[in-house]
């Protein structure tokens, strides 16, 4: 799916909100590291989009920070972990799954 820069910013903020409301007490340290790194990358991408002028706001979005481009592995790892737990703990990790899914869709 192609996003404009304007849409991407809205999607990133949606992903950030979803990840922020997730209760992390049920996450093992390895997945919490993935989450914190992903959150930092999404935060950096949002700040970059807010601080820099994008000449064509409606143009096709491509990640502007290397941190966000590089956090695909962490997001995918989180996604796999959530999928594996989904049958058992779907309700516990639904917002995490949503946030990860939105962020990953921007990196496709």
């Amino acid at each position: 799916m192609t996003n404009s820069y304007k849409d991407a910013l809205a999607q990133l903020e949606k992903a950030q909100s979803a990840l922020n409301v997730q209760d992390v007490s049920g996450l093992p340290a390895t997945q919490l590291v993935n989450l914190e790194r992903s959150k930092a990358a999404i935060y950096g991408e949002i700040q970059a989009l807010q601080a820099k002028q994008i000449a064509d706001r409606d143009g096709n979005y491509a990640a502007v920070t290397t941190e966000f481009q590089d956090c695909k592995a962490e997001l995918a790892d989180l996604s796999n972990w959530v999928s594996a737990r989904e049958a058992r703990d779907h309700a516990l990790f639904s917002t995490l799954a949503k946030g990860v899914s939105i962020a990953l869709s921007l990196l496709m």
Partner: protein
Amino acid sequence: MQRLLQIFVLIGFLSGFSACSIVDDMLLTEEVGDFSRSVVALSAIITKEFSLAEEVNTIGFTDNLRFQLELGGNPDTDLKPLFNASDIAARQSLLSGLNGYVETLAAVASGKSLSSEYAELAGTAENLKLVSAESFNLTHSLSLLESNQLVNDLSLFDKLFILPERDKRLLPIVEKGGTALKKMAVLLYFDMGAVSDQSSKCSYTYPKNNLDADMSSLRLCKGGLRSIVSNAISFDTNIWKDKLSYMKAQGKDTATERNAAIERLVSIQKLGQSMDKLLNETQTTLIAMVKAHETLEVTLQDAGKSSSPPVSATVSSLLFHGKLRGLLETMATVQAALAPLSGSPTTSRDFKSMTFPQTASGESDDK
């Protein structure tokens, strides 16, 4: 109430001396001098606000780094600043232009020669010509065309800096400078931005703003420095929330650690509230600055007809100085709140010690 009293005292004072043109000239010189000092102080605050935003960003980065390391992760250790050098330089050129303009006004009003400052002003004018819309992201609330229109004519000031000495009369300078001053104020107003949408049109297009109208009517969409700071505060807040949850789940938290984390969580949110108040007050002070300049222009136009400044000019001027004093107090609060979080010594004295314009009663506002 105190401010109202000051206004009435000043009005009475001015009426009492209305027949004396020497006193009027002195009052006008003081008025222009006060306006100039206030604008320079406002510029310094705006410059500081960008470095405060970087400090909050650094706090979030450091806390995230620490937490990831505590969890056994391998975090990215390169700090990314929010703004690059050219972004900051563009804003600095803008503020230097503003300072150069009001210092020119003060010098002309007091009859001083500008020749000694000419080299600096010429440099400022050159820098203003280099400012481009690319250094500002105003696209949260304005079309690219509107952003360019705001940035394009900023070098209007340079024509005022290079006026021959014989043409350096206050009224024509103020009349010409008003347009550029308002453009800069509007640009900075949008650059400060908003933490949430102020118009229902934001989700699909830009709010319909008349950039020539009263600045109070401007409607912004989420974005700009206020949104950037809000996001930085939220980022750090969430690190501490996650940390508290993790410590609790692991059963590793002692009462001391828990209390320290809670204290930190609350402190960063309080800092966020103070910083947004500071940025919002900066926007209202910019509006007051434009109004004070407009009434200064009216005062000068009426100078030949009447021997005392109109009441509206006096009120606008006092409102601007009042807003600025409030802004300086909020800046001191922000710096005091930030110091323990960033581990730097308190620097609130920097702004507390700034020279304030005198009040109507003649007392210094320097507290």
